[in-house]
């Protein structure tokens, strides 16, 4: 059973698991944690940066889910519900911590949004492998954008959620999801372009 992928085949299994959890079957809830813990942690880790804090928020997500699973109506998928709880906790935390994300003007975007290519040994698009340095640049780029852009980028590009699911989690229109996704990727492009330009000038 791979509930985390959200395929239609797993829907009945998911509903059965939810039903068992509602009946206070702790073993069923442990199964739910097994399926989602690393995915939720991966999302939260990039939303809050600090590893310990991310671990606490992931834990809090499951505790909140445990407390309220009896009220979960099953209209949205389990993963949408869990990501919504995790996202809300991340936003609550972001409100407490004053953080100033790096703002890009996206000035160059109106002239040429094309022509972005990394054709060197550090990035193999076939295998999707990044070398450590480039990976750090990507991680820093993700970390430097605002929460609203980052959450969309992570949910779409890392968690493979559909636009509709993301709109449901973030409570925003689908058009806004697409706009934010475009801007988030554009932000990352600018970070990478700056890095590659700097690399080129050094070499």
């Amino acid at each position, binding site marked *: 059973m791979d509930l985390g992928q959200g395929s239609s085949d797993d829907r009945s299994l998911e509903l059965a698991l939810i039903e068992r959890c509602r009946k206070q079957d702790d073993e069923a809830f442990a199964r739910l944690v097994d399926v989602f813990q690393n995915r939720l942690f991966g999302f939260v880790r990039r939303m809050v940066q600090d590893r310990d804090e991310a671990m606490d928020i992931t834990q809090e997500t499951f505790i909140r889910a445990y407390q309220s699973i009896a009220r979960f109506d099953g209209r949205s998928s389990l993963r949408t519900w869990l990501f919504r709880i995790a996202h809300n906790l991340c936003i609550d935390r972001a409100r407490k911590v004053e953080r100033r994300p790096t703002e890009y003007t996206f000035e160059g975007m109106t002239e040429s949004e*094309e022509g972005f290519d990394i054709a060197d040994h550090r*990035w193999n*698009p076939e295998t999707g*492998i*990044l070398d450590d340095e480039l*990976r750090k640049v*990507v991680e820093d780029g993700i970390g430097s954008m605002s929460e609203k852009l980052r959450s969309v980028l992570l949910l779409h590009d*890392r968690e493979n959620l559909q636009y509709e699911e993301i709109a449901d989690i973030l409570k925003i229109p689908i058009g806004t999801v697409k706009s934010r996704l*475009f801007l988030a*990727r554009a932000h990352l492009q600018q970070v990478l372009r700056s890095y590659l330009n700097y690399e080129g000038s050094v070499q």
Partner: protein
Amino acid sequence: MERELLEKMLKDAQLSPEEEAQLDALLASKAQQTVSLMSASAPQEELDLDWRRDLNLQLAKESEKRRRRNRFMWTLRPAVGLALASAMAMVIWVRQPTVEAGPYKAPLEQKVIAAHEEATALSDLQGATVASYHNPSAPKQREEWTEVDLGAL
């Protein structure tokens, strides 16, 4: 890309269907897809067993809390039911209508006894041949002697 579209996106403004189609094309562009692949390729970090043990402990506490709450509700529900039933019974009992004995204040039995005692007392005073019942509204008897009376003498 048009500046107007970019500005709308930066303001989270609603896009027209044409603009959304344009945005779909932009999202599918090579530059955007490259960045998408790169952001997806960062390795997944995993949680350790200590984290899971902590979570299990917290969930066990929550489970115990829930059990206690359920037990409390089990005892609370009948108690609340009983209290409600008692309150209802009290209300019904207090508001029950009283039976009026009639225009007299005293109960009927006392009136009967009083009438009997009065009649007995009159009988004692006047003798058995005198009617104990005196009706003031009855026509007065004539007190003069008639010829019939005199003849009888």
